[in-house]
């Protein structure tokens, strides 16, 4: 019996296809509804008048920051598991009291009996503003003429220098030097389910149903912020309709919902409208400006420049990652060792920025792949040839990159050569050239990526054998669409040699799962999967002891295979189920094993290719998208492929259509209808391949990660294909029709 390696059908799909799924907004709780009044200025002092709102039918309360902040004791802070706050300048971030820092910031809260009345109430709240000078543009903010937070004395939240080797010498010795400017504009992650929360406080215990990727971190953050011990807080993650990194941070609206439920002693709920969701999570927006040096044979020898990352008005839980992860990943899979990168994070009077699928690796990959393509263009070299010249070779593995990151396993040049063949790159390039001769604007482009994923520091898993021999596996990972629960059940079924139908995977409830970190950064199968394998191994060992006890034998005499414990000498057998029942009869009843598995990063890699066509109006379409990846051992190919498809379609959005326009008043000037999340018409046809000879991670599962691959490399491949189609040089995403029609 072997489940691993097969495209086993997702275990829990029935509820989704029949409409019985339960997201936060579907829960029936006797709760009041919250609505928020939002700032209409990017920076200013304000005064709220509640009187009119309190007269609205159904309105129960109107709260301002000064009331809510008596309960919200601490502010929102950075994710200290991954972000060292010491070099940062961090403003206090609670519910706005007298001064608003961005257009759209919540400045008052209305609680009512139903959601229509709550909205009526919010519309009836009167606000007087005294506007202050605001700075919307990141470059202008970096000059510190107008400050977002006066008390910080600067808009630069972080500044760090990432230096390796001797960049000046390397530039001086280079055959050629070229200036580069590479950037990503502001995006909106846009999971299909907008964020939502229900909070219930019974005077002692706080129960929170929350659309989140990180229920356990949420519990500890809420404990810190509200001063309630973790034992009295239960965070439940119901079905979650996508996250893409956007449901791993906390916003003042959510803290206000919790605070109001404590204040009122009644459950309160809030589900963001799509418009609110678009204001709750913006991401990306960064610019790299610098100079590169290379030899005439295509060897890249130096990268020097400044990376500016926008923060928006506050430092969110996750955005502190970007300015510190992008620079060390800029060398990517290439041998270049002389680099000097100044990394800055800049506050502006705009919606705070958070991480989005790939978080830092898409930015780093776009920078280095644009650099590779620039070298190719300058020297009139082939894209594949220039990359082969620079890729780290297999015999250099494990390779320590110039910033100290240790690339674990891989054979980058071989994968590139295989990928070119499997994806029929050369054939497609010739076809596109032929089409262009006929007058069509068609192009083919590829890009390579090296990803860092499988982030620790740890993950929890528990394997519990129940009385009838079925098994409950509790994981600290928190899948919300990826289907990782099915892959983990496959691994556990193989480990315990029992049918997969006997296994139930549980996650996302801080009372049911004692510990956990969550699902983000393409980590779940590697680290939570390995933790589940480890806890299952220990549970099996405990079962073996019970079997030995029941057969009055020594543990060493008992062998386990295919659901049976066998006495090696005597040949006696006891079934798995019988041993499970036996386990509940003696002292210390039950069989449970739990682990906290520590783990470190791993590095998947691959090459992706896009085929694009640009029409007479400059509107581009990605017609085909092909991927060839080494993601370590593939546990469920169909699930892995699904990640490539989904990330690839988000890459199409980032490269061509999606742009969170912020106008001169700091207002988000785009609705969901014109933000253009790709539909089935814009989505390409996919072909996804995984390297047959994979390079394993150090994790028990031997898997690496695939959740973000396509969004990490896709934009670079698509932009390269656009260059091939149009002959233009492009350097930022999204590439809009007006640039292509010129």
């Amino acid at each position, binding site marked *: 019996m072997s489940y691993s390696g097969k495209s086993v059908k997702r275990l829990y799909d029935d509820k989704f296809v029949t409409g019985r799924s339960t997201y936060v907004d579907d829960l029936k709780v006797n709760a009041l509804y919250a609505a928020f009044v939002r700032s209409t200025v990017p920076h200013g002092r304000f005064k709220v008048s509640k009187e009119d709102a309190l007269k609205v039918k159904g309105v129960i309360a109107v709260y301002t920051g000064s009331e809510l902040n008596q309960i919200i004791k601490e502010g929102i802070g950075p994710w200290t598991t991954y972000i060292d706050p010491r070099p940062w300048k961090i403003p206090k971030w609670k519910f706005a009291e007298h001064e608003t820092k961005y257009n759209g910031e919540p400045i008052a809260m209305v609680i009512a009996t139903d959601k229509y009345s709550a909205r009526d109430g919010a519309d009836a709240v009167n606000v007087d503003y005294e506007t202050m000078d605001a700075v919307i543009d990141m470059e202008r903010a970096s000059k510190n003429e107008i400050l977002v937070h006066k008390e910080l004395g600067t808009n630069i939240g972080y500044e760090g220098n990432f230096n390796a080797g001797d960049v000046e010498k390397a530039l001086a010795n280079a055959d050629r030097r070229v200036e580069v400017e590479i950037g990503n504009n502001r995006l909106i992650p846009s999971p299909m389910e907008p964020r939502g929360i229900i909070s219930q406080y019974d005077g002692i215990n706080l129960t929170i149903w929350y659309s989140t990727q990180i229920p356990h971190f949420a519990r500890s953050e809420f404990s810190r912020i509200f001063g309630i011990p973790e034992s009295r807080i239960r965070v439940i993650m119901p079905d979650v309709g996508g996250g893409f990194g956007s449901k791993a941070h906390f916003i003042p609206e959510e803290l206000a919902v919790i605070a109001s439920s404590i204040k009122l002693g009644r459950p309160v709920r809030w589900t963001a409208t799509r418009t609110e969701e678009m204001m709750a999570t913006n991401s990306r927006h960064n610019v790299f400006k610098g100079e590169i040096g290379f030899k005439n044979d295509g060897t890249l020898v130096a990268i020097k420049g400044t990376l500016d990352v926008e923060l928006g008005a506050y430092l969110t839980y996750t955005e502190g990652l970007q300015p510190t992860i992008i620079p060390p990943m800029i060398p990517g899979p290439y041998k270049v060792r002389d680099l000097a990168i100044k990394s800055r994070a800049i506050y502006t009077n705009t919606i705070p920025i958070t991480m989005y699928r790939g978080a830092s690796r898409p930015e780093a990959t776009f920078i280095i792949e644009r650099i590779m393509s620039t070298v190719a263009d300058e020297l009139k070299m082939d894209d594949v040839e220039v990359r082969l010249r620079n890729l780290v070779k297999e015999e250099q593995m494990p390779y320590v990159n110039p910033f100290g990151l240790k690339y674990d396993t891989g054979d980058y040049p071989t994968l590139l050569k295989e990928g070119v063949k499997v994806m029929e790159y050369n054939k497609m390039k010739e076809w596109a050239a032929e089409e262009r001769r006929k007058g069509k604007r068609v192009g083919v482009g590829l890009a390579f990526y090296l990803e860092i994923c499988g982030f620790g520091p740890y993950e929890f898993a528990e394997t519990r054998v129940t009385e009838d021999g079925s098994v409950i596996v509790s994981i600290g990972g928190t899948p919300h*669409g990826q289907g990782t629960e099915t892959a983990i059940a496959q691994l556990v079924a193989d480990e315990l040699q029992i049918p997969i139908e006997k296994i139930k995977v549980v996650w996302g409830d801080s009372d049911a799962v004692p510990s956990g970190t969550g699902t983000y950064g393409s980590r779940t199968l590697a680290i939570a999967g390995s933790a589940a394998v480890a806890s299952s191994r220990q549970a099996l060992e405990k079962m073996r002891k019970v079997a030995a006890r029941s057969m009055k034998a020594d543990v060493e005499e008992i062998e386990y295979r295919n659901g049976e414990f066998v006495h090696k000498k005597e040949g006696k057998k006891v079934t798995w189920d019988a041993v499970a029942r036996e386990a509940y009869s003696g002292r210390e009843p039950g069989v449970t094993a739990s682990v906290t598995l520590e783990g470190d990063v791993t590095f998947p890699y691959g090459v992706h290719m896009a085929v694009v066509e640009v029409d007479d109006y400059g509107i581009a379409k990605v017609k085909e998208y092909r991927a060839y990846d080494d993601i370590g051992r593939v546990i469920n190919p169909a699930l892995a492929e699904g990640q490539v498809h989904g990330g690839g379609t988000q890459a199409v959005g980032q490269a061509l259509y999606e742009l969170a326009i912020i106008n001169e008043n700091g207002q988000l000037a785009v609705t969901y209808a014109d933000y253009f999340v790709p539909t089935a018409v814009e989505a390409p046809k996919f072909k996804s391949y995984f390297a047959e000879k994979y390079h394993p991670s150090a994790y028990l599962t031997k898997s690496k990660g695939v959740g973000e691959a396509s969004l990490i490399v896709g934009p670079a491949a698509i932009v390269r294909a656009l260059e091939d189609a149009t002959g233009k040089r492009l350097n930022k995403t999204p590439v809009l029709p007006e640039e292509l029609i010129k």
Partner: protein
Amino acid sequence: MLVEPGQKAKIKVKVNGVLHEVEVEPRKLLVDFLREDLNLTGSKVGCDTSTCGACTVLVDGKSVKSCTMLAVQADGKEIVTIEGLSSDSKLSPIQQAFKDNFALQCGFCTAGMIVQTHYILSERKEITEEEARDLIHGNICRCTGYQNIINAIMDASRRMRQ
């Protein structure tokens, strides 16, 4: 129907075969009526611009985004939601095809996708991949990249022709 401010309107509507005679606020959206008053939470609210299609239902056999219609406009009509597409815990061929083709990830768009597919395939049994893409483009999915959804629609149309 004339309703004074603050008054409710009486409607008669058949949902998944069950007749309901109820009073609703005239401004209440059909999707909120289904979700809040009838507890049919299978239809989801994914946007506020009638863009995403997660709330798609059938109104007298035609697919409608139930956030674009008021509950009072459904007076006298027959509505089918995702909950009405399968009975006795047996999946419909379309639901089965979505499951078999890995056509969902987070599942939030799935109800709308399946109802829309039901509508598409009730109008025409034969369908090309390109037509399927065009006919489902009012339903947004952020997870799957659509290829498996298109595969599911093609698969379901084959199953329904057999």
